[in-house]
């Protein structure tokens, strides 16, 4: 199972500002009634992109034509808090994003993203504001999230980014989907299981 080595992600960005953006906001639960993840992208941030009363677009950054085709999502602190639903990172990825940069991430969401090969990098509030300002000035600004070197380059500037060690290793070495390695450990798993009485058949 050869996986891509994700050493960096390059693309245009869009900033969805705010702290504590939760998984219900990323993908409202009513759109999770599905047996595949296909088609989830269209519901990304649905209830904040559309006025619940009129159904009309609210002018959300995702719908701003200037940021169309952005592949790097920027946000605030505690991004992805709440549910363990993989529907949230799946919706982000299926919408077309390849990386998320935020001040910090909720634990389960972070892990879910890495497993999908979608890097989550943390940067300081001030640096995220710098990137957001650059995008605002020129939406065509190319953002390079360098996972390997843990930095973000954009419009001639470079700011530090952090990708947690285990995630960074998994991404740059192409082992972000753990299944192959886990399957290799099946014999060792059986040895561990044999020592645990509650697992007896």
């Amino acid at each position: 199972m050869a996986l891509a080595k994700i050493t960096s992600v390059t693309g245009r960005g869009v900033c969805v500002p705010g702290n504590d953006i939760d998984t219900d906001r990323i993908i409202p639960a009513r759109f999770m009634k599905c047996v595949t993840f296909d088609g989830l992208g269209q519901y990304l941030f649905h209830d904040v992109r559309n006025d619940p009363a009129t159904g009309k677009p609210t002018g959300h950054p995702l719908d701003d034509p200037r940021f169309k085709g952005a592949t790097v999502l920027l946000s605030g602190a505690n991004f992805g808090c709440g549910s363990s639903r993989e529907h949230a990172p799946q919706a982000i990825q299926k919408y077309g994003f390849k990386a998320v940069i935020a001040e910090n991430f909720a634990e389960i969401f972070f892990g879910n993203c890495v497993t999908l090969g979608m890097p989550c990098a943390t940067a300081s509030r001030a640096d995220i504001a710098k990137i957001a300002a650059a995008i605002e000035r020129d939406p065509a600004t190319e953002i390079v999230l360098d996972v390997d070197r843990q930095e973000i380059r954009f419009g001639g500037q470079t700011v530090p980014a952090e990708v947690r060690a285990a995630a960074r290793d998994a991404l740059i070495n192409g082992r972000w989907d753990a299944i192959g390695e886990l399957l290799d450990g099946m014999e060792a798993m059986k040895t561990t299981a044999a020592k645990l009485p509650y697992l007896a058949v």
Partner: protein
Amino acid sequence: MPKSLFEKVWDAHTVRTLANGQTQLLIGTHLIHEVTSPQAFGMLRDLKLKVAMPHRTFATVDHIIPTDQLVEPYRDPLAQAMMDELRKSCREFGITFFDRATGKQGIVHIVGPEQGITQPGTTIACGDSHTSTHGAFGAIAFGIGTTQIRDVLATQTMALGKLKVRRINVTGRLRPGVYAKDVILHIIRVLGVNGGTGFAYEYGGEVFDRMTMEERMTVCNMSIEGGARAGYVNPDDTTCAYLKGRPYSPTGAAWDAAVARWKSFASDPGCRFDDVVNIAAADIAPTVTWGINPGQGISITESIPDPAKATEVDEKASIEEALAYMKLKPGAPIKGTKIDVAFIGSCTNGRLSDFQEVARYVKGRKVAAGVKAIAVPGSQIVALQCEKLGLDKILAEAGFEWRAAGCSMCLAMNPDKLIGDQLCASSSNRNFKGRQGSPTGRTLLMSPLMVAAAAVTGSVADAREVFAVSQSN
């Protein structure tokens, strides 16, 4: 060297270290439900893999199940499709499914404990963030995403980085009218919604020593709302007494061996914690949320925060955003806020003791005119226990609709939803924007008895006054 329960369970379940430094951790018990598993079974089929330990995998249906319709097909074809998909996968892979026909169906975090599947010193995973509930038994229980469900199905293991452990002591005695729900809402208020990131919470102290298993489950359930992926209480006599005689509990000589083994997992005296937080029980009051995350809570006697008085820019912005959504007035008392809906249920507060406590006080009272009140048992077994005690009748006479078991109005995946900007007094766990099914619906989290007080008065009220609560818990 003395070790914490977390370390002991982690070590006992460590298979090996992976190349990226994470641990391949054995997951002894895998609980699945209809929302997050169908895609995982699809991945399994694509990879031509089998379920590694079908006998350690248990399924139930909870999120999408209508609580007012027992006969299939369900009115919502998508809900029916998810139900059918789970049935099919369980048959195909030989997994025990607590379907409605078994009489054991319910919310996954209620079913595991009541069947005795949830045991001390074990590892548990489930595609639901409230899996932390099972930590009440001294298990290490993780909420996981769908790709990890695939991993656990295929290998009975998952890749995980070791968490740090924060011990949270709640000392002294809770005041009358203060419940487990208030304890966890208070903890989240103090430590923040992301204060637990990277940690497992070990809850202890006199308050936890004295709690029933159902109360411990309420607290552990909401660990994730504080950012902690897992939360647990050390196993003790209360834990063992709860498990005795349950369908999946050991019997005879195996029972004695299990009890000894379970207790050996409790944190050793003098073990090291990465952090310790002390909270005085006397500081905890009946707590109500006013905002759009579970950390935005105040005691029933406090006023709604005023952004003008916020000391930090962030805090000001988050109060403003929350109040704009909640349509609440800054500086006004939370008490007296008119409600439209009252919901008692969920994996946080949908157990027998929750309904017992409510029934004890609402007996002879009436739900206020204009308030829709629903009481939803967390499992078929909880429903039966309540019905045997006549609690369903007491609640129905008071004006609550008594429903069939499921997640119901905790989240928007079944017909129980808020309409428009209705304001709901809710015993559930999340007050996120749109959480209860309407994109403008508003949720106030509180204990079941506080929900009952709001239901009978028609507005947010102090249950201690409404019901003259004086007895200590």
